[in-house]
């Protein structure tokens, strides 16, 4: 880790907070994956890590590499762009596949149901 020595204390704290926040959100999302019982509920859990979680980690990375001036932060923006575009598409595909299977098996979740999925 070159440049770590030159980082002022406030910057270290900022980066640390962002990293912990991001990984914490990813962790909570994973807990949700375990806790939720139906597929349609589980779809919501990983989005914590893929939205605000990713954003926090990327912000931490931007802060670190900009403050130590080791490289420009263009890559973080691109990672953010790719994650934002690809995750919802993946989740949409998964949901479509599940709906299709549920309908084939004769239990359409959309057929007159308000709660309990």
């Amino acid at each position, binding site marked *: 880790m070159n440049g770590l020595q030159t980082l002022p204390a406030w910057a270290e704290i900022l980066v640390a907070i962002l990293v912990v926040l991001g990984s914490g*959100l990813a962790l*909570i*999302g994973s*807990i*949700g994956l375990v*806790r*939720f019982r*139906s597929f*349609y*509920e589980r*779809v*919501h*859990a990983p*989005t*914590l890590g*893929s*939205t*605000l979680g990713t954003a926090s980690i990327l912000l931490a990375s931007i802060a670190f590499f900009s403050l130590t001036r080791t490289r*420009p932060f*263009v*890559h973080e*923006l*691109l990672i953010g*762009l790719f994650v*934002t*575009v690809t*995750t*919802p*598409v993946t*989740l*949409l595909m998964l*949901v*479509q596949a599940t*709906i299709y299977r549920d309908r084939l098996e004769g239990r359409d*979740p*959309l057929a007159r*149901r*308000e*709660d*309990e*999925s």
Partner: protein
Amino acid sequence: MTRWLPSPLASATLIAIWLLLNQSVSPGQLLLGALFGFVGPLLLRRLDVPPPRMRRPGAVLRLAGLVIVDIVRSNINVARLILRPEGRRPGFVPIPLKLRAPLGLATLACVITAAPGTAWVSYDPGDGTVVIHVLNIGEDEDWAAIIKGRYEGLLMEIFE
């Protein structure tokens, strides 16, 4: 636009992303980027995707800001729901939409799915009804009105 360059905007975006990814503007990378910018939109045309057309950059910015605020808020809500799941009421919500532009619908699908707590489930092109799954419907929140009020108007401004 033309036969060989159906979507200049998509071509420019591809070239820009390629150069940023490699962080270089050397002739070799420029050439490669230009190749992708040329081939990409041609492939896209084979998929019958309407060429991206952005109107009203102001509305695009407003939508982006709105989405960021909503995603941060729903992150907090869903994190709370995961850690304390009592009293949660998940369910499907039908929403009748006026929005018909394919790219607008695609954008809405991505926004709704990306935001924690809501997920796009199905769309009926016949009557324009979309069904979303909501992690916690709450007591008397009108999700259809929320989604329509926050996003539909802006999306129609941008894409129709």
